[in-house]
């Protein structure tokens, strides 16, 4: 009885502290996952918390559960349209990329650790996969909007690459435990089972789940619970059959998320919450699990491996895998650097410990340090790098301050409500200035606990509520006017797409006259939209750029596969990783040396 109460008190308190710490950390810009991990350690046996937790079995179970939910949630957010532009590079990265990373990192491990080649390869495989939890969190919750193809490639890669790493790890553990035998056969069969069962059950399960949910009459609050339970069944069932539950649950999420689910908003909101709890629980638990002082002996070799992974193995693997695709060098570099390691490696490192492999605990420690280093170094620098490399897109207004509600089935407008804030663009402006798009109907404005009469309403005031009926595609326009503008600390100007904007239908010729663009006579006759797609390819996406003489054209928005709006950069920014002046100074020094040489040479040459 007492124990139960203590347990409840403890888990509640841990969760509360974690959430509050999260709020604090976003103020100082620390990676959230690191905060949760750190909190776990602080609560652990060597911190002030003093909780002793060494149960690798429990850790494995909780970790699987949390990961399944996070992956499912990630799948729900992945739309088919973004998959279409990213599936090819992402799937190559998720398979060949992982194997390459594992092999190269394994080599580093073999060089710095006293291990057999096979065990070294195991180390490589454990840390080979990019972590979905870390990537999703970093890309979504930091409020970063990346170029769509880059962001989606990373998301899909991280969602799909765990099966490969898991498969490599399990295979190697089997090999280490049972010696050779029929290696080739076992390997092929395991891979086939992991991927095959995972894909089939995931796709079918996701479809079935959507069907059942849409046909079932339940209390509204039960729909999201039903969906989560379904996801867990898909995960557990696939694992039982020997397939990859992680792949299955991610695919099921994608399928279910792209069908119109009943109680869609409810499901999404619930999932948002539960995915958060999973992140917190998983990383705190992993923090609790480790004994920080025992990491010390493995610190130096582990740091070397981490360095090799981050600076050599991952970049090389990414460059090789993305070879056939149209990415810019700085985009490749960015994808390489966002190869965040997270819970999966730590969680995979539990497998050798449970399997009873020699030095299993050392492998665990090494994996742990690699993950910590990656989260610290990469997690902290990714937003900075995105800005430096010009990968970031202008922010969309944050949807806090808006709620929406689907009405009946078959009605294509939603009920949206806004709470006007002090910083909303429309706050204290006359109501006539509000641009009301087609098919949007303002229903009411609520103020001080009453509905404001239409004829008495002069302007929108902070803390008003505005209710409207709007088709989902028009909501963004309302968002821009009614949501508080996002303030970013330490930034004088926000990233934008171009100095000026033009509709995609504008004629190239007229633009060429104003800005002296070098285009052919035939291109002058084209629309901007066709012109850009003829130069950049049909599948270009928002943020893609085309250099044209002194200026640069950039895709500002896309609709139905056509370029909707085009921006123009009059003075294109050069992505600069190094300080701006450096290249110029180096070039200057070069010129200086060359000049001196010529001078000397002239002096040597006899006058004619």
């Amino acid at each position, binding site marked *: 009885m007492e124990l139960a109460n203590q347990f409840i008190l403890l888990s509640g308190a841990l969760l509360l502290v974690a959430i509050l710490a999260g709020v604090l950390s976003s103020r100082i810009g620390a990676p959230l996952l690191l905060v949760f991990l750190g909190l776990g350690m602080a609560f652990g046996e060597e911190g002030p918390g003093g909780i002793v937790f060494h149960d690798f079995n429990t850790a494995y179970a909780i970790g699987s559960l949390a990961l399944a939910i996070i992956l499912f949630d990630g799948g729900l957010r992945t739309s088919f349209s973004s998959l279409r532009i990213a599936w090819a590079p992402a799937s190559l990265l998720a398979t060949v990329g992982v194997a390459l990373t594992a092999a190269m990192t394994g080599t580093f491990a073999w060089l710095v650790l006293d291990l057999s080649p096979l065990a070294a390869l195991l180390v490589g495989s454990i840390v080979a996969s990019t972590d979905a939890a870390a990537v999703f969190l970093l890309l979504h919750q930091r409020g970063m909007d990346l170029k769509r193809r880059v962001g989606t490639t990373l998301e899909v890669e991280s969602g799909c690459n765990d099966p490969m790493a898991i498969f490599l790890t399990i295979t190697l553990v089997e090999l280490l435990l049972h010696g050779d035998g029929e290696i080739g056969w076992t390997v092929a069969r395991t891979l086939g089972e992991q991927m095959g069962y995972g894909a089939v059950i995931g796709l079918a399960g996701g479809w079935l789940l959507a069907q059942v949910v849409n046909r079932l009459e339940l209390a509204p609050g039960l729909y999201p619970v039903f969906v989560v339970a379904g996801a867990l069944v898909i995960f557990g069932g696939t694992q039982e059959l020997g397939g990859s539950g992680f792949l299955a649950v991610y695919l099921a999420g994608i399928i279910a998320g792209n069908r119109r689910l009943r109680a869609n908003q409810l499901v999404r909101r619930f999932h948002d919450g539960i995915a958060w709890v999973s992140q917190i629980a998983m990383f705190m638990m992993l923090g609790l699990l480790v004994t920080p002082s025992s990491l010390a002996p493995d610190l130096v070799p582990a740091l070397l491996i981490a360095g090799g992974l981050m600076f050599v193995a991952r970049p090389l693997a990414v460059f090789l895998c993305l070879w056939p695709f149209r990415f810019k060098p700085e985009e490749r570099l960015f994808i390489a650097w966002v190869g965040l390691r997270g819970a999966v490696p730590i969680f995979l490192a539990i497998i050798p410990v449970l399997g009873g492999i020699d030095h299993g605990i050392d492998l665990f420690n090494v994996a742990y340090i690699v993950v910590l280093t990656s989260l610290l170094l990469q997690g902290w620098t990714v937003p900075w790098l995105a800005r430096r490399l010009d990968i970031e897109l202008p922010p969309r207004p944050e949807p806090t301050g808006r709620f929406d509600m689907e009405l009946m089935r078959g009605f294509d407008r939603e009920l949206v409500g806004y709470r006007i804030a002090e910083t909303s663009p429309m706050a204290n402006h006359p109501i006539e200035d509000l*641009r009301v798009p087609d098919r949007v109907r303002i229903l009411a404005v609520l103020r001080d606990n009453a509905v404001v009469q239409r004829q008495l309403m002069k302007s929108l005031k902070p803390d008003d509520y505005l209710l409207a009926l709007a088709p989902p595609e028009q909501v963004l*326009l309302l968002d*821009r006017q009614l949501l508080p503008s996002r303030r970013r600390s330490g930034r004088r100007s926000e990233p934008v797409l171009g*100095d*000026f*904007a033009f509709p995609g239908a504008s004629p190239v010729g007229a633009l060429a006259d104003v800005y002296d663009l070098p285009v052919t006579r035939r291109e002058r006759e084209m629309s901007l939209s066709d012109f850009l797609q003829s130069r950049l390819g049909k599948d270009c996406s928002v943020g893609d750029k085309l250099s044209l003489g*002194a200026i640069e054209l950039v895709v500002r928005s896309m609709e139905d596969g056509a370029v909707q709006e085009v921006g123009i950069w*009059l003075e294109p920014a050069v992505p600069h990783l190094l300080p701006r002046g450096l290249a110029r100074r180096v070039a200057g020094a070069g010129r200086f040396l060359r000049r001196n040489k010529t001078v000397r040479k002239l002096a040597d040459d006899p006058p004619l």
Partner: protein
Amino acid sequence: MEIADMLSPEGVIPALRVTSKKQALQELARRAAEVVRQPERAIFEVLVERERLGTTGVGNGIAIPHGKLADLDRLHALFARLETPVDFDAIDEQPVDLVCVLLAPEQAGADHLKALARVSRLLRDRSVCEKLRGSDSRDAIYALLTEPANSRAA
């Protein structure tokens, strides 16, 4: 290309009273005609022609109408603070209250683009815009616009 090379204190209009985009362009064309000694009609048409391609309202209440004139001697800029913001079909749908007109000779080429980029970059800086909105004398605005970039960064 510094802004002081294109903009003279006479080119600054601290409180322009207009009620629409069209009227703003008309009024600015009239003032520009005095500064650059070119027919008002031609200037207005160049600016309207450019607006037809796509708005020069770049967001955050800023607009940078621009265009090329055949017989201009050099680059010319005009800056106006509108007394009341007007709808400018800006990309962010927000009304505009800071307008910088840039006129370039037909052959200006790269200089024209550089000057435009310079103006665009300056007005993308929110703190500069706030200061511009807060000052109502011609000299204060002129000083803000022509202040060298490095002293502003400090």
